[in-house]
């Protein structure tokens, strides 16, 4: 193991801001911030809660645009994998998997662990574990260099 590109200050700051949004949505409106669930309910046109979920997604879209008018340390944007087939497979797996497993990084990883839910702690360990193994395999077969 070799530590690289470590940005503890920026990442902790961003994490605290994310936590603030999660705490606000719960205390002010009573909802958990599970992005895969919120987004899925919008695109599947679920009438119940459609309006608030749509406005949350709208906020998620325009937040980064507003931020770009302010000075901050930009941590960049780079996609190590650009093969369209891999991107499509990855997207399908993320979409299908988050619905089957009822949660993603925000729902299980932040809200679930924040509530000390055993189910979400297990889910998070499984997706991080599967991710670690996948990146290892990608490197071994030479599809990505990290």
């Amino acid at each position, binding site marked *: 193991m070799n530590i690289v590109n470590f940005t503890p200050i920026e990442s902790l700051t961003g994490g605290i801001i994310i936590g603030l949004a999660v705490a606000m*949505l719960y205390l002010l409106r009573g909802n958990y911030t599970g992005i895969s669930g919120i987004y899925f309910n919008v695109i599947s046109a679920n009438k119940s809660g459609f309006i608030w979920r749509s406005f949350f997604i709208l906020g998620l879209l325009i937040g980064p645009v507003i931020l770009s008018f302010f000075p901050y340390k930009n941590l960049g944007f780079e996609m*190590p994998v650009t093969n369209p087939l891999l991107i499509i497979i990855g997207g399908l797996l993320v979409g299908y998997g988050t619905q089957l497993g009822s949660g993603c990084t925000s729902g299980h990883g932040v809200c679930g662990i924040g509530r000390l839910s055993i189910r979400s702690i297990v889910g998070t360990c499984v997706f991080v574990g599967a991710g670690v193994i996948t990146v290892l395999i990608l490197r071994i077969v030479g599809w990505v260099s990290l």
Partner: protein
Amino acid sequence: MIMKNIIIPLACGLIFGVGLVIAGMTNPSKVMGFLNIFGNWDPSLMFVMGGAIIVSMPAFLLIGKKMKSPVFNQEEGFSQQLKRNIDRPLILGSAMFGVGWALVGFCPGPVIAALTLVDGNVFIFFISMSIGMLIKKRVF
């Protein structure tokens, strides 16, 4: 109703998106770097989750417990719909999600927040993810 249905969710989504960008979550190479524990490891994502949990945990476990209902939502109260059991769909779904997450370096929140970068590959991932979600709804 305007607070509950428009202002609060819009503000929360906006703050969440700002946090994702500042944290570096909208950069797939940082996410894949975090999952690369057996190589050149970037531990940053642990700090993102840690920071988010430190702030949200007291809201769930302390402040929320002392409140009868959320400030702007007396009608529906705090969300209660959550499952507790550890079952096959949880394990299988999370494993599939983990593989997809690692293949590209995007999960649902960051890919939505990255859409305004107007990048073709981001768009391809976003559309595929949306289709994957709708397939799940149709198939099972």
